[in-house]
């Protein structure tokens, strides 16, 4: 059974490009377009890895992380965002994320390198 990766990303085009490229490595990729949907999705089924954007409509990434912490979920989360402030990075690290990646500085191959070690 393939590993399941959940991408929470409000830019649908970008989400689909990640899905397209990652699925070549033999993983299943689901996409949710906002924070509320992400919370709903992880409650229904915990993914093997969550790729989480920070700036999203209907609850942002921090709220999702807070929810995950409250629920006690243990699946790894990688932040995939275009915010690069230290404060954001530190907050996420404090909330227990496994990685903090800046989308524009990253190729899908580099993403896969970081992601694959968590699977």
């Amino acid at each position, binding site marked *: 059974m393939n590993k399941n990766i959940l991408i929470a990303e409000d*830019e649908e*085009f*970008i989400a689909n*490009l*990640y899905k*397209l*490229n990652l699925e*070549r490595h033999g993983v299943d990729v689901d996409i949710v377009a906002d924070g509320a949907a992400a919370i709903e999705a992880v409650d229904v089924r915990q993914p093997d890895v969550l790729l989480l954007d920070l*700036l999203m409509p209907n609850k942002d990434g921090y709220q999702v992380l807070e929810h995950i912490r409250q629920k006690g979920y243990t699946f790894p989360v990688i932040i995939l965002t*275009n*915010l*690069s*402030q*230290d*404060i954001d990075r*530190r907050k996420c690290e404090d909330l227990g994320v496994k990685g903090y990646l*800046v*989308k*524009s*500085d990253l*190729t*899908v*191959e580099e993403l896969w390198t970081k992601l694959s070690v968590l699977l």
Partner: protein
Amino acid sequence: MTVSNILRGPETANGSNDPKTKRYHAVLLAAAYILFVACVIVSIAASQFAASSERARTHAEFQQQARGIQNLIQERLQAHVNALLGAQGLFAAGTRIDRPSWSSFVRGLTAHGRYPALTSMAYLENITASQRPLFEQIVRADTSLNPGGYPQFAVRPEGARDRSVVITYLEPEAGREDLLGFDLAYSHLALLDDVRDKGELASLGRLAVSRIGREYLLVLPLYRSGAPQDTVPERRSAFIGYAAETLSPAQLFQDRTNLPLAEMQDVFLELKDVQGEVIFQESDLMGIGVDVNDSNRFTEDFPLHAGGLSWVLTVSVPDTFGLTPALQKEPLLVLLGGLAFSLLIFALLYEAANARHRAMILAGKMTGELGKFQLAVKYASNHIIITDPDGKILYTNPSTERITGYTRTEIIGQTARIWGGRMPPEYYRRLWQIIKKERKPFDGELTNRRKDGTEYEAVVHISPILDRSGQLYGFVGIEEDITQQKVLERARSEFVSLASHQLRTPLTAIRLTLETLRSGVVGSLAEAQQEMISRAAEYAVRMADTIHTMLTVSRVETGTLSIVRDSVSLASMFEDLRREQEPVFSRKHQQVTLNCPSDLSIRTDAKVLWEILSNLVSNAIAYTPDGGLITMRAAAEGNRVCIEVADTGYGIPSGEQERIFQKFFRATNAMQKKTSGTGLGLYLVRSLTTLLGGEIAFTSVEHQGTTFTIHLSLNPPFHEQEHSDR
């Protein structure tokens, strides 16, 4: 009120240039001088007065004593005259006085001792040339007194004379026999005649007779008793001879113990006749002449009159007469004492005036300086407080009231806790540790609360105040309200963050699209298409790099880049750098050398150091021709580590080396080789190195290469102030 007025204010009121102070000082000094001169004048006058009053007193005393001498001498002289007058009376009483009568008369006089200067008295008989032989016979045969008579008696000197005045009786005779028979008319005829005619006593002067050469001869004419003597012819007709007396002037002054001048020192006595001939002179000064006109002597002349004699007595003594040695020095002592007193008074006044003046100037200066400081503190926009060593507030400026909302009276006596205490306890513990235990200044940022409950952010500088002995007097705390600044900073930071996010999202889409196209997932591409997509991807990467650099610069400049120190292995960081740049090295056939001890690690922020080194390595690659050599070295040097990135590239023109760390600066040769640089790289490298507490330097020779050297502390102190986000 303008600032210059405020600052000038106190000085004109109290400063050293105050004309009032100057005038007062001048008046005091003038008073000191005037008083000094007055005291000196008074001293001199007092000395003079003492001298003159003393002199007047002693002079009067001298005069009195000298007059006493005069009286005594006059008295003694008069006694001699009286003796002669007595003889005159004797002859006036009887017709003929014989030798025994004369002898007993004279002895009667001398027996009483009333005539100490009387040496002898003689009767001189007046005889004509015709009477002379008989006269000589009678005298030779006179045995009335001397049993043997006077067989040798003769009128002398020999020779014929019309008249002779012959010494006939002489008492005492003993030792003077040879005077008998001496004819005074031989030498003094004119004078004797004059005496006879006037009927008055006269001095014949010194006797020419050698043995008694120092004696004076006084003569008084004798007339027959009963004969009229009122006119010259009557007196000539009644004339019988002379009574004569030999007088020793020295004898007049004998018996000094009875003289008032007995105790005088250096006394000078002189007796002169009316012709000015010195009759007698006596001086204690053993032959040393005395100038009676000397102003340092008291000299007094007295006339002496007796019978027809008119002499002058001069008495002279030094003007120290009557003064004891102490009294002699009195005027000098008065003068010296007065001068000393004057000097003392002057010195006291002068010192007092100067001390007062100096104190006034100092006070003026200090007040002026203090006034300036007070005004500076008062009008400072910063909140300034001064506390005692326990933090109790002693002073507060108006800005403190404005910023905190508390009034002065509410603040004084309290501690800063009334608006503070909003930070974690650890913060205050460290603050007190630094300022009180270590006695060092503390700098920090904190959040306080105003009286109305609103919070404000402040930069605080607290310094311990130590007195001269190093004792802690208290603290001065300066706070600047940076709430507005922080709001602006946050707005800027948020804007940059949002802007970069908005730029990055489309870039992400572009890069992902290009990557997807290249991967062939959506269908394979022709070679030309593949090539174009690759080039487009490179541009997208460069854009991402630029956004990253600009964002990092912004974070450094706004202080929002935080330093998180951890142990960093330099060897592995070098390896990572090489691995990342491997494709470029290969493409440019550049040789990379790493030289680093495998166990060398430092405590630093790995991301920031990576940023620094990757920028330097990227530069080295970009500005070194194909086939060049790039070397990365690291070594420990004491408690620091030295990291070098060296290349064999184009180098930096020597004229531009000073400017290479400037923002947006690009070397002229670099712009020719690579047009795409932002000029931010080395600016960022230096900013980040400084942020890590390190230093950066370089050496470069054009066409030979460049070496950048970074020094970082191996173990930076933990409490080092670090920027942090809020």
